């Protein structure tokens, strides 16, 4: 029903030539959706088609719920990362922050006994403060250094530090949270979808429609020009790293809620997939280009590939390699297309 009404709206826009908003809406649609998404959407469609042909269970609601459940944390993380990448930096710490946040959340709930909503809030604050620290460090050193250098170094250090920290607080043992029923609510499908939607809308709004977003692109495009044009470059960087930290912490909360256990290894190394989602989704690693939607699509592609390899029964030993090949094909198609548009 929901789908039907959306389709209705789309139809009205596309086919009703008298609609005065049609052109505006179309151009907005183009700007938000079409541009960054075409090549990858094609890949997604092909994968879906092939998987569906091999294993009809692919098209069941349960399967799509399963796909969704496991990519939301990655999507959220990737959206946060997209801000940092667009601003011309990099955040390698998001995986470790997610891992540490999961442990912190469990610690607050289980060992200290703080109510769940407050614990979640404090956990997000934890992610925020790490992110702000990164932002401050980068701001102090750049300029004169190119942004990527201090960004890489400090977030690498954080990656190592918080990865270790997550292991160390419980000496590697997980914290079990099964008795805290309310926590499981976070990972029910409607709430997950709500989280995704809110984060996505907020991210897209900031990037495409707000002043802050314009500043983020300017800083990533050319930081000297941004500075001479009066852009508050340090505030911008505090914001992007802080946002990325919060998103990472949120991903940690989602992961913990999904498993109702805080396992210190969860999320470690996820930054690679977060960055890859962005790269696949057309966010330029050189800064200044791309958008959060690309990050979502990219992480969706990655999640879909995983699911489809399981469903088509590819040997687990070859799953990684096949993932590599599919990603390569998707990426090459997309780059080639963008090459022609340029």
């Amino acid at each position, binding site marked *: 029903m929901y789908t039907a009404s959306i389709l209705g709206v789309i139809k009205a826009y596309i086919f009703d030539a008298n609609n005065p908003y049609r052109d505006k809406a179309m151009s907005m*649609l183009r700007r938000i959706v079409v541009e960054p998404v075409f090549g990858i959407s094609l890949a997604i469609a092909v994968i879906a088609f092939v998987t569906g042909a091999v294993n009809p269970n692919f098209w069941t609601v349960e399967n799509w719920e399963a796909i969704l459940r496991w990519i939301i944390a990655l999507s959220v993380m990737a959206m946060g990362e997209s801000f940092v990448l667009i601003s011309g930096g990099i955040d390698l710490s998001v995986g470790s922050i997610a891992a540490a946040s999961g442990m912190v959340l469990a610690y607050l709930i289980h060992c200290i006994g703080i109510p769940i909503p407050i614990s979640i809030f404090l956990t997000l604050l934890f992610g925020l403060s790490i992110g702000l620290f990164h932002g401050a460090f980068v701001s102090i050193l750049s300029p004169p250094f190119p942004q990527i250098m201090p960004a890489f170094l400090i977030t690498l250090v954080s990656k190592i530090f918080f990865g270790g920290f997550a292991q160390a607080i419980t000496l590697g043992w997980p914290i079990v949270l099964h008795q805290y029923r309310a926590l499981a609510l976070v990972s029910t499908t409607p709430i997950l979808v709500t989280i995704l939607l809110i984060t996505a809308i907020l991210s897209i709004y900031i990037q495409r429609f707000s002043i802050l977003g314009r500043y983020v692109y300017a800083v990533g495009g050319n930081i000297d020009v941004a500075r001479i044009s009066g852009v508050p470059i340090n505030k911008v960087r505090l914001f992007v790293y802080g946002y990325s930290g919060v998103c990472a912490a949120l991903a940690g909360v989602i992961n913990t809620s999904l498993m109702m256990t805080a396992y210190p290894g*969860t999320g470690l190394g996820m930054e690679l997939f977060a960055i890859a989602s962005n790269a696949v989704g057309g966010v330029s690693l050189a800064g200044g280009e791309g958008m959060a939607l690309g990050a979502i699509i990219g992480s969706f592609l990655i999640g879909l590939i995983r699911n489809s390899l399981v469903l088509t029964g590819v040997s687990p*030993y070859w799953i990684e390699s096949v993932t590599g090949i599919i990603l390569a094909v998707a990426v090459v198609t997309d780059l080639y297309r963008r090459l022609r548009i340029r």
Partner: protein
Amino acid sequence: MRGISRTTLAIVIIAVVVIAAVAGFLVWRYYFATPPKKMVFVVIGKSVHPYWSVVEAGVKKAGQELGVEAIFWVPSKEDVPAQLSTMDTYIAQNVAGIAIAPSDPSAATPYINKALEKGIPVITIDTDAAQSNRLAYLGTGNYRAGWLAGLLAWQCLKEKGYAKPGATVKVAILTGSLTAANSLERIAGFQHAIGNASKKDPDIGGNINIVWLGPYNDEEDAAKALSLASSVLASHPDLHAAFGVYAYDGPAWTKAMEGAGIPPGKICLIEFDVTPDNIPPVKSGYAYATVGQRQYFMGYYGVKLLYNMTKMGVEQALKNFIPGYPNNKIYDTGVDLVSTRTFEFTAPTGEKVKVTSIDDYRNLCVQLGVDPKLLLGE
């Protein structure tokens, strides 16, 4: 001159998505009309590792014998979300039965229970998830295996005369993960066994100072394991005992000892797993023994048990298979302790511990239907 216009692109995208969706749906309808083919059983392991390759061999064998589709799946490294998301996918597919070796038992619990609620029988193998409603557990706990390794180490320390009243004994542990449950349990078992034995030993009576070094984390990288082992030996040349928690850790200890010029037999090294790589240290005398789990049976019996559950009902199948059911839901696949010779000793804890020689172990493999070459090499 932009090639295709953006609007065309938009229409093409929508068209492609719609076509894919419709086609997928049609195919699904087509399949839906035909009755399901083979039954599908899924066994989920922990990581790509020789250990799990042996489990896989058991799974495939059972699948062949029963004429069902037996899928074996592992993530490439220990990865809890990857494992659980895959399990979730299989649950969504309504497979006929699932056997899982949870990387994190408590994290897996919601998913095990969810599958059971949907009517999919679930058992655990290798690592138990005791708080969940899993129908049965097949395997020897890693804790138990670590415990036996600890008893072996204690026996060796006694033999070499390191364990004397009032002495200080240094024991180092090298592992591939500080978070994976199997590693944590093996280490806990190992440490508890030595601690227990030292207290219960009539000669010692707890009058001994055990210095624990580690567990050092090599992140499943054998080269890093070697470098850590070398560093440990360099800082503690007087090390008495060493434990390699993952398969390649024993060989890494051995290499490091060779490199540091330590003669075979000076340090009591206990390895874990039987792979072609674990045998040379035993043969050369660097390793006192290695601990092998009979993982083949976890895969083999796991699939058979799940199959029987679907054929004769859960209760009946379990009653036939597990002695002492329903009070006991655990089937012990057993542990082999492999060394150069066959012998037996009574540990201070009162347990009788049996150690088999490599040749006996080879015979045992043949007897149990496992290709010994797979485990022991040429």
